[in-house]
Each structure stands twice: as structure tokens, then as C-alpha cells.
């Protein structure tokens, strides 16, 4: 029963969702909205579980002085600071000029932006590895990447400005992006679509049970 009931619920809801896509009549037409609303409600309630788990793990780590417990202490302090200030400022805690807003704008956003900025350096290191001409495919990738990159910067336009329009480096870069790149991406998208249908069918039919600990 531990597996059968979740499988039954999954099957009923899954089939219901398939049907609602084809039937606009009430109640099917509204099912998607209802489930979406309920998902948001359950998700909002579940955040408490997540926050409590984060606090529990961090407090335990700090209390037992486990390795790198300092990071856990920072998490607890940051969590409590934001929560207390948010609650103290009441309903308008996100209004401009509030302490919460100050922390959001001058602590949270710069920290997020810093993480995002690191991406630029990681792109450089990953490109360095990816564009090494180790074999035929990698060489092809290198050549394509070279033309796309040089075709998208002003110097590329300048270098090939003597060539007729349609044969300049920027045109070549556009062709790579709109023809071979788009074709490859669409092939991947078709595969993804079929994969989603196949996985959904396996789950609805109860064949796929790994997520509930089932299987052979």
C-alpha cells in the first residue's frame, strides 16, 4: 500500500492533466490553474520546512563545533538578522528606505552580482579547455567558435569589410547561429519533447517507481 497509493494518485492526476489539455470545458479547463495555485500554496508552506532544516543543520554544526562551523554561524546570524528586521518593519518591509530594503539592496544584490560575475572567469577557463583541438570534433568546434566570436565583435566587421555583403565575418557568424546551431538545438528539443512524454507515460502507468523507492 505504501507504493500503491502514491502510484494511484499519480496515475489519476497524470491522466487528468492529459485530459484537461484537450478539453476546455469546465472543470477540465480550470484544472491547470487550480493545481498551479495549490502547488504555490504547498510550496509556500514547504519553505518553512526548508528554513527549519537550514537552521537545524547550521545550529547543530555550530553547537558541536564541527569543521568549518564558522560558516554555519554566519548563516544563522544572517538568517536571524533578515528575519527579525523583516518582521519588525511589518507589512511595508520592502518599501524604499526601510532597513530590510537597505540590506536587500546593499548586501544581498551585490553578493548575488558577485557570484554571477564569477561566471565570466569560469567561461574563460571552460572555453580554454573546450577549444583545444584534441580531435576532429573539437577542432570543428574551435573553428566554429572562432568565426562566431570574431564575427560578433567590431574588429571582425572591420577585418572583413572589403568583402561583399553576405560574405563578411558577421554574416558567417549569423549563418552558424541560425543554420547549424539552430538545427542542432531543434534536434535536441525534439528529443527532449519525446523524452518528457515517455517519462510521463512511465510514471503515469506506474512503470517508473525509482522516485518512490520501487523497481525490480
Amino acid at each position, binding site marked *: 500500500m505504501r507504493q500503491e497509493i502514491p502510484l494511484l494518485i499519480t496515475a489519476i492526476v497524470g491522466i487528468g492533466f492529459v485530459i484537461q*489539455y*484537450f*478539453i*476546455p*470545458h*469546465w472543470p477540465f*479547463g*480550470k484544472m491547470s490553474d487550480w493545481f*498551479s495555485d495549490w*502547488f504555490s500554496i*504547498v*510550496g509556500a508552506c*514547504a*519553505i*518553512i*520546512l*526548508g*528554513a527549519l*532544516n*537550514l537552521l537545524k*543543520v547550521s545550529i547543530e554544526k555550530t553547537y558541536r563545533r564541527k*569543521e*568549518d562551523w564558522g560558516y554555519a554561524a554566519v548563516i544563522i546570524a544572517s538568517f536571524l538578522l533578515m528575519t527579525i528586521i523583516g518582521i519588525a518593519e511589518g507589512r511595508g518591509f520592502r518599501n524604499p528606505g526601510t532597513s530590510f530594503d537597505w540590506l536587500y539592496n546593499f548586501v544581498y544584490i551585490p*553578493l*548575488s552580482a558577485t*557570484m554571477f560575475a*564569477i*561566471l565570466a572567469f*569560469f*567561461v574563460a*577557463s*571552460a*572555453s580554454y*579547455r*573546450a577549444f583545444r583541438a584534441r580531435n576532429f570534433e573539437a577542432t570543428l568546434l574551435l573553428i566554429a567558435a572562432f568565426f562566431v566570436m570574431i564575427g560578433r565583435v567590431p574588429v571582425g566587421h572591420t577585418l572583413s569589410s572589403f568583402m561583399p555583403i553576405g560574405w563578411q565575418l558577421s554574416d558567417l557568424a549569423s549563418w552558424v547561429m541560425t543554420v547549424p546551431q539552430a538545427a542542432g*538545438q531543434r534536434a*535536441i*528539443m*525534439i*528529443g*527532449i519533447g*519525446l*523524452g*518528457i*512524454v*515517455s*517519462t*510521463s*507515460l*512511465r*510514471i503515469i502507468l506506474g*512503470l*517508473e517507481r*525509482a*522516485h*518512490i*523507492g*520501487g*523497481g*525490480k
Partner: protein
Amino acid sequence: MIPRRYKADRMLSPISLLILSLICLIPITVCSQTEPDTLESVLSDSIASSMELDLTPAPVTNVTVADTDNDAGGSITVSWMPSADDYSGGKVRLYRVMRAEAVNGQPGEFTEVGDSPAGKTDYSSDDGNTSDDVSYFYKVVAVNVVYNEAGEESEFTSESDMAGPITSTPQWFHKQRINTLVGMCLLSFFIIYYIAQAKAGKKLFIRKIAGMEAVDEAVGRATEMGKKIFYISGIGDMDNMMTIAAMTILGRVAEMSAQYETYLDVPVCRSMVMVTAREVLKEAHSKVGRPDAYKDDMVHYLTDDQFGYAAGVDGLFVREKPATIFFMGQFYAESLILAETGNSIGAIQIAGTAMPSQLPFFIAACDYTLIGEELFAASAYLSKEPKLLGSLKGQDMGKGVVLAAILLGVLLETFGVFQLSNLFSVID
């Protein structure tokens, strides 16, 4: 007055004309002093009337009303032929749609229900603003809006003939999705057919997926090194198919790690994923007879924030130095931040996502990458169960049909036959 003055001009000398003109002016002045409104009002009415005629747009014609197709009711579509003044720089600014409920077959009071900009020739509201058991009449008003020098707004309108009565009705089938239904039925048939074939014992050839072949090796490596395995399920929530696929793969990986007695660490970005992943791990450990090895803390929540999560996971990677890292699920810009950090600590990395824009990053930074559909096939592949492998074969047959349709479509389009591509158009 003008003809009289004209005659005088021709008949009299200039001096006489001047005298006569002065005489003629007297009554006018007197008149304007005694009855100030009469002449001005006549003149202004006449000018306003000619201006109104000039600024009023021609009415729309052929107003038709119909129940909006393929909807849940509550909507009527109004169409019309545009006003003759509806052109660039013309007098029509917008079309105002007026509606009246039918009372004993006759229209009641018309009220505005919406508008369409000039150039548009239909209006429908899908917000359920009509009742399915009430009949309505419609008419469309062409509106011109003019501003004077003081910025005051004046409207010049012309109404169409009335159309109706009409009643909205809900439909039981979305006719424009019939192609999706046919495609889905065909694919389901293939999948179910090959599942039955596999159950009957027929050997099915499934191509090797390098990333999945490496899972055993990756888990074994962590065991030998005595280090952790990290499983990162992306930043999608449980309503995302990639996250669901990631959870099914997690079940297989958890079984292996439990068998090998290797610690599996699953930091998550969503609370609902945390709850689901805990259940998956608990069941996997029970299944291989190691329920004691399961701990709730194996799955722990970090944050819902994308870059906060990336920072948290990066920190764990750098401090814990795991031997193996799995990235399965939905990833955005954090994919390369995570994978490059994993690469820098020398972990064996297996990634899988159906986000085409993130695939190059994983391919560049990870040892193995499951591309698109391979993510969804991974769980079936790892299980080696015939019925699940059968579904993969059915999926491949579906791909064969799509491929054949593409080739046929290319041929037909090349020769100017466009009907086949129309069959694949889908309305959301």
C-alpha cells in the same frame, strides 16, 4: 448681406460706397449689442457641424458575432470590416465594442465591454465576461479622438449596425489540438507496444549511453577514495519534469551508494525537492537492506536563491572535496559556476539537463553529459528493467516518425506543397 454689398460695389462710386458702408454697419453694430448670441451661435454651430462631419470616422460595416471556439465558454468573438477611415493617419483611433443583454429578444442598454486599436478587426475576451445562459447584442463604434490647443479631448464617433443575438458556449474538445492528440496516441502506442514486447522476453537493443555507463565507476571511485558523492538536482521545483527525472535517477544512484556504503550528500534549492529527495533516499536505502545508513541530513536545504545556492554548493565542494558529483535537473547560469568548481577540485562529474543553453557548459566542464532526452532515459537505462527499456525503444520509434515527417516536409516544401507543415501547427 454679401450679395447686397456686391451690388452696391458695382453700382456706386467709392465715396457713396463708403457712406453706404457706414450706414450698413450701424444696424450690424446695434444688432450685435442688442442680441449678442444669435449670429455667433449660428456661425459656431455651422462651423462645429462642418468640423464634426469632417472629424467623424466612417462607421464599421459587416459586424458579425460568434461564440469563441475551443474555449471554456464565457467568450464571444466580434469581427467587423474596418471603417473606410481606418488607415495610417486616418480618422479612426480605436474601435469600441458595445454590448447589450437581450431582453425578450430585444437589446437592452448598450455598455462598453472593451476596445481594439485601429487596424484590428476583431475582439474577443477570454476572461469569462459573458454568461453562457444569456444572449447578447453587439455593436462597434469607430472612435476618433481630437485634442485642442488647451489639451482638451474631444471624441467623434460613429456606430455600426447591431449584431446578434448570440450566446457563448463551452466546448468539449479543443479542435486545434487534434494533431497533438494524434501524435501523443502514436507515441504512446509505440511505447506500450515495445513494453509488451520486452515483457514477452524479446531482446531490445539500446545504444550505450557513456554517461550512464560511468555511474558505476563514479560511485566506485568515491568508495575507493573514501569521499562523499554530491548529487545536485538543479534549481527547478517538483513541478518541473527535469527535476522529476533527476529524482528518479537519484533513486538509482542512492541504491548504488547505499550498497557501496558511500555517503551521498544532496544539497537542494527547493523545500519540496528536499522532502521528495528524502523519501527517495529512504526508500532506496531500505530497498538494498541498508535502512540504518540513511540519515535525514543527507538531504539538506540551502536556499531558494539561484546564486546563493551556487555559492553554498561551491563552498561545500571546496571544503568537502567530493570524489564524484552528479548534476541532474534544471540549471541556468549557475551550471558553469558549479561545474567549473567541481572540475577544479578534480571530482569526476556526470551532468544531465534538458536546458539546451546550459549543455555546452556541462560538456566543457564535466566528464560525461547526458544530453536532453538522455536525462529522461537515464533512470530506465540504469534499472535495466525490460519494461522500462521497452519504453526507450518506443521513444526511439517516435523519433523515427518525427524524422520521417521532417524529411517528407523538407521535400514537400521544396516543391511548394505547404499542407504538411500546417498539420504540425499547434495553438497554445
